[in-house]
């Protein structure tokens, strides 16, 4: 444990280097060799990018580390540190397993239970956010654990959805568990620790670095039984997660989007390349064979998914306000289902003043039917 902890603290320690270091000897021996200035593994097998200076640097670093202190520091945080020998270690089949795993929250979530990763772009659309939220919520309700990366955008929506659906949210992060990144996710971070599970392969105090996020993606792919990409641009971390998932022979699912939507370029490309198209939680459950068939068909099919009890129905307050123009509200309802639409366009369509449209939309927003985002009206997002 202490040897692994020391290795975790070395600079630039990514999955490929870990694999190389441990390719010949156990961690205790590796630490001893590093300390002595010997090669811990055959240099001809070293991953590209390893230079002799790295070994010198590690030697200096390892000489400074005090394994006993390190262990104490980590334990002081109140986290659980999982060792590969632990019965709960989830990465037995992982080709590039982490050295250790730092966990905060409910470790039972790692137990055998179906799990799905929902990931996607940080720069998502409101529709994407809504789809991710709803899918995560319904999967959580169906007893599936939702894994994601606690980034902004789709990841955050997926975590929120899972938490709203009764917990079972696992966040895999690319920093130390005490380094909230991005900072804006502080509340969500705390919530995931409180009612779900947060894990990382990095020790306390480890800050964000560009290369650690793709490395984090492999753990998401490894942890989940399948990966759903909700929205991704033509290039993006979410596509890496899809690759990692495919490499581990796990199903990759993708939510199709408009071909004009740049945030759906990546997902549409995945579908062309053979990913399983999926619309909602039911599709996920069916295509993974966890559910025999889609639940009973809706009376009115909708693009986003089922209108279930959690979607707030028209509230009592809305009924008390009969002044809202019913005809305008009907047009709004009809148009919004086809996609986000601006107040200006609605004003032209209904041939009424912006005031009438705004009043109607705001009343519908209060009732939870739609959301007014700037001057765009969108179907109620999570």
């Amino acid at each position, binding site marked *: 444990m202490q040897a692994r902890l020391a290795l975790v603290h070395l600079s630039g320690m990514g999955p490929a280097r870990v694999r190389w270091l441990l390719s010949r000897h156990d961690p205790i021996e590796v630490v001893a060799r590093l300390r002595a200035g010997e090669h811990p593994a055959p240099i001809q097998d070293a991953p590209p990018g390893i230079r002799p200076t790295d070994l010198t640097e590690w030697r200096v670093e390892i000489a400074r580390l005090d394994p006993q202190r390190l262990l104490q520091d980590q334990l002081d945080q109140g986290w659980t540190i999982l060792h590969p020998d632990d019965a709960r270690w989830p990465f037995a089949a992982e080709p590039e397993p982490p050295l250790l795993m730092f966990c905060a929250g409910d470790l039972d979530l790692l137990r055998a239970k179906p799990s799905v990763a929902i990931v996607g772009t940080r720069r998502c659309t409101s529709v994407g956010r809504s789809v991710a939220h709803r899918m995560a919520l319904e999967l959580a309700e169906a007893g599936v654990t939702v894994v994601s990366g606690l980034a*902004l955008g789709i990841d955050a929506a997926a975590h929120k959805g899972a938490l709203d659906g009764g917990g079972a949210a696992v966040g895999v992060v690319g920093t130390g568990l005490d380094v909230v990144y991005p900072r804006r996710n502080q509340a969500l971070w705390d919530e995931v620790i409180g009612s779900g599970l947060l894990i990382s392969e990095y020790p306390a105090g480890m800050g964000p670095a560009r290369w650690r996020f793709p490395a984090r993606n492999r753990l998401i792919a490894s942890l989940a039984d399948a990966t759903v990409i909700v929205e991704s641009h033509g290039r993006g971390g979410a596509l890496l997660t899809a690759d990692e998932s495919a490499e581990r022979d796990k199903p990759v699912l993708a939510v199709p989007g408009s071909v004009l939507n740049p945030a759906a370029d990546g997902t549409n490309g995945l579908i062309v390349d053979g990913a399983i198209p999926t619309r909602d939680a039911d599709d996920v459950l069916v295509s993974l064979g966890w559910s025999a068939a889609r639940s009973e068909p809706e009376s009115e099919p909708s693009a986003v998914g089922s209108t279930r009890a959690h979607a707030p129905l028209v509230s009592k307050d809305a009924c008390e306000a009969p002044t809202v123009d019913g005809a305008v509200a009907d047009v709004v309802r009809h148009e919004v289902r086809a996609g986000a639409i*601006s107040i*200006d366009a609605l004003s032209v369509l209904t041939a009424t003043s912006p*005031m*009438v449209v705004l009043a109607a939309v705001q009343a519908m927003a209060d009732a939870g039917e739609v959301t007014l985002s700037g*001057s765009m009206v969108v179907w109620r997002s999570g």
Partner: protein
Amino acid sequence: MLATVSTAVVQGVDGHPVTVEVHVSNGLPGYTLVGLPDASCRESRDRVRAAVLTTGLKWPDRRVTINLAPTGLRKQGAALDLPIALGVLAASGQIEAAAVRSYGAVGELGLDGAIRPVAGLVSLADAMEADEIFVPRSGAEQAAVVRPGQVRGAETLGEIVAALIGSEPLPPIVEPLATPSTDARVADLSDVRGQPLARWALEISAAGGHHLLMIGPPGAGKTMLASRLVGLLPDLDAAQALLTTRVHSAAGLAVPPGGLVERPPFRAPHQGSSAVAMLGGGSAAMRPGEISCAHNGVLFLDELGEFSVPILDALRQPLEEGVIRVSRAARAVTLPARFLLVAAMNPCPCGEGAQDGHCRCSDAARARYSRRLSGPLLDRFDLRVEVQPPTASVLLDGAGEESTAAVADRVAEARSRAAARGVRCNADLPAHCLDDVAPLAPAARSLLRKVLEAGELTGRGLRRIRTVARTIADLNGEDDEVSVDTIHAALALRTQPRTVLGVAS
């Protein structure tokens, strides 16, 4: 011999009387200027001497001492050239000292003796302690506005000297021009195609004096809309016109030929403007800044996110009080700054953020961009509207839209309703009289209660919502209670812009 001439200097927008005392005595020829002149004022010696000589008069080859009283007040600029010249001529006996005493004078001299215009003429004319005043011919109408029947416009030093020694008649008295200044409503609202929401917001802003923030991608028409807002505002009344003219004059802006600024000004300072240029201060004259030049008019800040954060935050006090207090080490002036703030910004640095998924900005860049707009400043905007680019069909085939004149009529009507309540516009309605002038219908009350309980609105926000709702009702010609629809609309016009929400959550 001793001679005195009345004149004035301007600080901020106010003029201060100054007496030029000239003493010519025997002794070594010399020239001393005392009484806190700054560098530009000290330079007057060479101009005045050349002007006197080219006019065909003599420069005294004696000891010349000039004192600018009161000595505690810093004098700046070339406006004292003319009174100094007259003082020297009187003290050296070339004109009667008694003849000069009843006149005030202000003006810059050219080496050929020509009298050139100076900034702040309105305030200077107002402050001079004299029966009649000599001012530069161009711009004399401005001075005549505050001193009718007492202003004589002169073009050369020779003209004045000839009149004072009696060889020529005095330069004529200048009267303010009777013809009103030409209407500045050049950009018409009918040029704007589509944009019903933004047009409506513009109308509410003009009618109620509510500050407006427009957010939209490049090319959506934000600048076009903003430049048409000023056309919707009513003419300035006499007192407003005079004060705005004073400010413009002090700032050295061109004043319309009639002498009075009668239309609300439209100021659109560039985002790179310095704090002094925006807020005022700077030189000894404490020149008014852009926000004062926009007094009684519209201050348009395009690319709001590109202005420096300290400048934006400094706007908060004038927005609240209608004046800006500029303090420097030695002095402090209070400048008028009651303006309608209209701002435009892109949703994010790349400008494409309004369209879902098109933004190319990094998350950090977006966060940085939205941080520039502090919460308290954002709170001052009663109307926050997202402007979407109009579609091709609207641009090409759109019917002619309502003209400025039609909307301005409704605005004037709404403003007269506000005036009947004893305020300039609804934005000025004090909180305590809202229950009287903007009573809430029961449904509207319960709606607001719900919003307040949800924590989506602050106390200040509530007050602003109610004043905006009052304006909307005024524009619709409703006199009675504020309906729930109106409150809904007012709430929707105050939504958080998406820039500020960011892409998180």
